[in-house]
C-alpha cells in the first residue's frame, strides 16, 4: 500500500487541483479581510474592520473545514471511474481496501496542507490589515481548528467512500450533504419528539457547532474551551472517521468495476 500512497502523492503533487483550490481559497480569504479593511478605512464608524470580527466569523463557521475537505478530496479523486484508472490499479493486484485506505490518507494529507496554507493567509491578512487586539489568543483559535480536525478528516473519508462506491459524482456529493448537513437537522427535530434520539443529535457536529458555539462581535463562547467540550468534538470526529471508513470499506471491498 505504501507504493500506492506514494504514487497518489506523486499524482496529487503534479496535478493542478490542489494548488488551484488552495490558491483560490487563500486569495478569497485575503480579499474578505481586504474588503473589511476598505470599509473600515472609508466608512466612518464601521465596526467590523476588527481582527476579532474576522476571526470570530471563522470560528463560528467551522463547518467550513468539512466542506473544504469534501471539495478538495472530490476534485482529487473525481473521474477515477471515467478515466479507467481504478481498473489499472486493481489489475495490478492492489486490493480495493488498499486503494480506499490510500486515497483516504492522501486526500487527508492534501486537505490538511491546503488548510494550513489557507489559514496562514486568513490569519496573516487579518492580523496585518485589520484593527484592534484580539481578545482570544492565537492558541485558543488554533485549539478550535484542532478540535474540528478529526471531523474534517471524517468528511474527507466520507466523500472518498461515497465516490469510490458511486460512479456519479454529483450523487455522491449530494449524499455527503445529506449525511453531514441534513441528517443532523432531521435527527435534531426528531429528537424533540423521540427522547433517545436527542443525545444522538447533540453529538452530531453540525448540531453542536450551531448550538454550542457562539462567536461574534460581542460574545465568544465555544464548546472546545472546556475539556468536556473538546473531548466531545474529538470523540465525535473520531467516531465519524471510524463509521465513514467502515462504510467505505464495506461498500468498496467487493465493488465490481463494470
Amino acid at each position, binding site marked *: 500500500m505504501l*507504493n*500506492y500512497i*506514494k*504514487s497518489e502523492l*506523486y*499524482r496529487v503533487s*503534479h*496535478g*493542478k487541483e490542489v494548488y488551484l483550490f488552495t490558491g483560490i481559497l487563500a486569495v478569497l480569504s485575503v480579499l474578505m479581510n481586504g474588503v473589511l479593511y476598505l470599509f473600515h478605512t472609508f466608512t466612518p464608524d464601521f465596526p467590523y474592520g476588527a481582527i476579532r470580527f474576522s476571526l470570530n466569523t471563522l470560528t463560528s463557521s467551522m463547518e467550513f473545514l468539512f466542506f473544504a475537505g469534501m471539495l478538495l478530496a472530490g476534485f482529487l479523486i473525481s*473521474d477515477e471511474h471515467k*478515466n*479507467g*484508472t*481504478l*481498473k*489499472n*490499479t*486493481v*489489475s*495490478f*493486484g*492492489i*486490493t480495493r481496501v488498499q486503494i480506499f485506505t490510500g486515497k483516504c490518507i492522501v486526500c487527508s494529507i492534501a486537505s490538511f496542507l491546503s488548510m494550513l496554507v489557507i489559514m496562514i493567509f486568513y490569519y496573516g491578512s487579518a492580523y496585518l490589515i485589520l484593527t484592534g487586539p484580539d481578545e482570544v489568543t492565537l492558541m485558543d483559535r488554533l485549539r478550535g481548528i484542532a478540535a474540528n480536525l478529526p471531523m474534517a478528516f471524517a468528511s474527507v473519508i466520507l466523500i472518498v467512500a461515497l465516490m469510490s462506491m458511486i460512479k456519479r459524482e454529483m450523487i455522491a456529493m449530494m449524499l455527503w450533504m445529506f449525511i453531514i448537513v441534513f441528517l443532523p437537522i432531521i435527527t435534531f427535530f426528531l429528537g424533540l419528539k423521540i427522547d433517545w434520539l436527542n443525545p444522538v443529535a447533540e453529538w452530531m457536529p453540525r448540531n453542536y457547532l450551531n448550538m454550542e458555539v457562539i462567536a461574534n462581535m460581542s460574545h465568544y463562547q465555544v464548546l472546545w474551551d472546556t475539556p468536556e467540550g473538546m473531548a466531545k468534538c474529538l470523540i465525535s470526529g473520531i467516531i465519524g472517521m471510524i463509521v465513514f471508513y467502515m462504510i467505505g470499506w464495506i461498500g468498496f471491498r*467487493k465493488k*465490481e*468495476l*463494470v
Partner: protein
Amino acid sequence: MRECVIESRSLTKKFGDVVALKDVDITIKRGDIYGLIGDNGAGKTTFLKILTGQIYPSGGEIRLFDAYAERELEKNRKRTGAIIETPGFYPKLSVEKNLEYYRIQKGIPGKEKVEAVLKTVGLWEKRKRKAGTLSLGMKQRLGLGIALLGEPELLILDEPINGLDPSGIIEMRNLLLRLNHEKNITIIISSHILSELEQIATIYGFLSQGWLLKEITAEELHEQCAVYLDIAVTQPEHFAALLEKRWKDIQYQVLPDSTIRIKNPEMAPDAYSTLASENGIGVLKLAQKQMMLEEYYMNLKEKGRLSC
C-alpha cells in the same frame, strides 16, 4: 511440461439474470499467445475482467500462476499487465507523468524504465503531451506502455488494436510477437479483427453467448481446416454435372458469383482444368485455398460445433 499461467474451471458469471459466462474451462500455458474470439456479448471482456480482478466470478474458479485463493491471486496479478476495454490513465497528466505514476505504484526501481517503455511503444516524442490530448491510437500505445511497465510475465489485452492506424497495427503485432519470442511473455488477447489474431495467436478460444465453443491450437486449426479449390468456368452448370459424373463423392458448392468451390479436392488442380477443357468449357479462374480462422469461426458459430 510448460507451466499453466491461466486456468479457469467451470467459470461462471451472472449479471442479474443474464449469464455472461457459463462453465468456461480455459487453459493457457507459458509462452502461449491465446486469441480469444467471439462476437459482442460473447463473454470475452467478462472473462478478462475476472482475470484482472475487476469483477468477481459467480461460480467456478480461476487460477493465475497456479494460485486461486484471493490473496494469492492479487499477489500474482503483480506479474501481469493489462488493457481492458479502454486504456486507463489521467488525462490531465503528461504521458511521461502517467507512466511515472504507475512506475511508482508498481514499485519499479529506476526512472529509466519509463524512458525505455516510452521508446518501446513509440511515445518518446510525445512524452510531454497531456495524455488526454492524444489520438485514440496513441492512447492505446500509452495503455500498452502502462501494461508493459515492470516487465510482466502475462499480458492481458482486450481489443488492443482498436483505433490504431495500419502502421500502428503492424507495429503492435510486431511488438507483441517480439515480447513473446524474446521474453517468453504469455499473452491473452481478444480482438474482432480475426486476420490480425491469425497472425500472432498460437492457440484460440471461441466464445459464444458465454460458452466456450472450442479451444484449438494454431497447428490443429491448420490441420483441420479444409483445403478448397475455387474454379470459375464459362458453363458452371455443365461443369458441375461433369464433376458429379467423374467423382461421385465430390463435395462442392456453387458460390453466388457462379464460382464452383470444391472442398478437399482429391486431385491436383490440373485434373479439374483438364476436365473442363476436354469438354469445351473455358476456365476463367483456378485457385487453391485453405479455409482459415474467419471461416472456421463462422462455421463453428453456425453449427455450434467444430466442423471444417
